[in-house]
Each structure stands twice: as structure tokens, then as C-alpha cells.
């Protein structure tokens, strides 16, 4: 029998947050499908994208549970190219970004060495973060230009950062701290950032925690974002 799931990592609050968040794609699908009932054409591509977005959130939550339940040995990180993870995430997010009219940019031009990480976990967390911001960005009153979200990697003094960035000045360390205290208890734990519960952000936070990493507020090229600092793989650096 598997050992109990660490309550501090994937708590009942997170499950509540995910359950609440899943109402959104289900309502969106229901209303879109209903257009056919009032004599209009329902957009099946849109319905498909919304369903997949909901499924990704469930998958991210499940993966977080699994990772939190693994021993350090089982969680053994591998050498991972951040650029390839961000590229894959970008591919997964394109349809959702298009639906929300958010321009998705991939900034992986820097040549960085591989990092030590659990590849699937890192990718699921990035997708969760980006999905939450894509849903939130169009409603940002302060955003006047074309809404853009950047998936980027860059070097910082502590390692290599993988993150998602936007023109979102309200995304501060204090907002994230407050959100961590409130999620699962408040309907809008990140009230200055999102009208939703922002569950994707907290699922990513839990996945990173299970991977012994920490989600931070991060700045990159005058953009505000959420990212994680990863350690370069010293094994491959010798090659």
C-alpha cells in the first residue's frame, strides 16, 4: 500500500481550489454548446480546447499527488533542457492562448546547459502557470496593449530560471504569499491578478514543492512573472 499523501503539499485546500476552477471550463463548454440550442453554431474547436484545458489541470493535480508520494530516490531528477520543456509547453498552450486572444511568445534563445529536474513535473507546472495567466490576462484593466505571455528561460545568480512572464505589475511576491495563504479558502486568492481561483498557479506551486523546488515571483525583460530556479546539471557540464 502506498504511503499517505503529505497533507502540507497537496492539501484539501488545493483540491477545493481545483474543483472550483474546473467549473469555469465546464460552464464555458455548456454555454458554447447551448448556442446550437438557440439556433446558432457552436464552436467545436473551442469546446475541445476548453475541455483539454480542464483535463490538463486535473492531470497536473494528479501528477503533483504522485510526485509528492515518491521517495527522493524515485524522484531522481534527470538532465533536462529547459528550452525543450518550454517549447513543448508552448505547443500545448497555443490553442488556449488563441482562444483568449493572448499572444504567446517563446523566449528560449539563450544557450544554457541542461538542468536537473523531473521533466514531466516541470512541464506540467509551466503549463499550469501559463494557463492560469492566459485566463486572467484579458481582464487586466491595466493592460492596454496586445496581451502577451512569454515562456522564457534566463540565467540568474542562483541558476537557470524557467518561467512565464507578462505585463502584469500586480504580480508581486506579496501577492503570491497572500495567495498561498488564501487559496482554497478565498474564491479569489490572487484578487489583483485573476478573477478566478488561479488553481493552475497553486497546482504548479505544489508540483514544484514535491520536486523540492520553489516557485518565485520573477522579473525578465521588464515583464513580471512566475518562475522556478533550476540547478545546472554538473554531470553534463564536464562533457
Amino acid at each position, binding site marked *: 500500500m502506498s504511503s499517505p499523501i503529505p497533507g502540507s503539499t497537496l492539501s484539501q485546500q488545493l483540491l477545493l481550489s481545483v474543483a472550483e476552477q474546473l467549473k469555469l471550463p*465546464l*460552464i464555458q463548454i455548456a*454555454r458554447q454548446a*447551448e448556442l446550437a440550442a*438557440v439556433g446558432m453554431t457552436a464552436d467545436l474547436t473551442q469546446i475541445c480546447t476548453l475541455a483539454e484545458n480542464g483535463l490538463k489541470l486535473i492531470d497536473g493535480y494528479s501528477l503533483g499527488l504522485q510526485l509528492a508520494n515518491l521517495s527522493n530516490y524515485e524522484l531522481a531528477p534527470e538532465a533536462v533542457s529547459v528550452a525543450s520543456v518550454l517549447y513543448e509547453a508552448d505547443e500545448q498552450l497555443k490553442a488556449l492562448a488563441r482562444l483568449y486572444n493572448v499572444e504567446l511568445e517563446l523566449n528560449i534563445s539563450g544557450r544554457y546547459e541542461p538542468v536537473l529536474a523531473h521533466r514531466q513535473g516541470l512541464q506540467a507546472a509551466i503549463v499550469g502557470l501559463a494557463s492560469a495567466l492566459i485566463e486572467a490576462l484579458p*481582464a487586466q*484593466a491595466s493592460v492596454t496593449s496586445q496581451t502577451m505571455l512569454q515562456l522564457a528561460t534566463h540565467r540568474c545568480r542562483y541558476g537557470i530560471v524557467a518561467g512565464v512572464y507578462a505585463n502584469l505589475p500586480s504580480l508581486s511576491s506579496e501577492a503570491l504569499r497572500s495567495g498561498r495563504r488564501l487559496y482554497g479558502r478565498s*474564491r479569489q486568492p490572487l484578487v489583483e491578478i485573476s478573477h478566478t481561483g488561479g488553481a493552475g498557479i497553486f497546482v504548479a506551486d505544489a508540483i514544484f514543492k514535491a520536486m523540492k523546488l520553489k516557485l518565485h515571483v520573477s522579473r525578465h525583460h521588464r515583464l513580471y512573472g512566475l518562475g522556478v530556479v533550476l540547478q545546472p546539471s554538473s554531470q553534463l557540464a564536464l562533457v
Partner: protein
Amino acid sequence: MSHQTKRILLLEPDSVLAGSLTAGLINAGYDVQHVYSAQAAVSSADRLKPDLVFCELQLTAHSGIEFLYEFRSYSDWSVIPVVIYSSVPPVEFNASRNGLTYDLKISGYLYKPDTTLAEVIDWANKLT
């Protein structure tokens, strides 16, 4: 008999959901102005002079309640019907229902997961 298109102000932070609602209401014969935020709703109300407002309470930064207090503070807008169309569930909404109904003159409350597009259109037909 001349028929003037009724104008609806839709305050909805989710662009995808707003798209479906807007399409359905336009198809039902309404002129719909969609806005994402409380600030934009005040500006749009001034320009649009709506016959009806659908309002979500859960918005980014300023809430729908803040918008409604601002909206009702202008005499021109004091009698325009407002329907709350929200993700806030009935048990939470009912806790402050009396205050909202009387102070802010709310005409109706619709819980998003329980409300079909046809019901939204019915409310629009009833109140305009």
C-alpha cells in the same frame, strides 16, 4: 411600430464565456457591450446608456459590488435593472442578499453553473 434595439452592458471577466453570452444575446436581438472590469463598466455605462446590466461579482481588482455602489450613486443609473450573473454560489450570495437587493436594487441573481443561456435571454426579455 418602431422597435428600438435594447442595450445590454455585460460585465464579465472571462472573455470566452462573454463571447458565448454576447453571441446568444445579439442573436436574441440585443445590442451588447462587453467589458472586463468595474472601471470599464462605469465608462461604458456612460456611453452606452444601457437598458439592462448583467454583472459578475468576482472581478480582478475592484469587485462587482464596488462597481454597483458606484453605478447606483448616479441618479441617471439608479433605476436601470441589474442582474447578478455570477460564480458566487447561492449560499454565499444569500448571506448579503437583502442588502444587495434593497441598497443596490438588484433585479435578480443567477448562479452561473445553474443558469442556461436561454434563461439569461429570458431575464433580458423580462427586464427590458
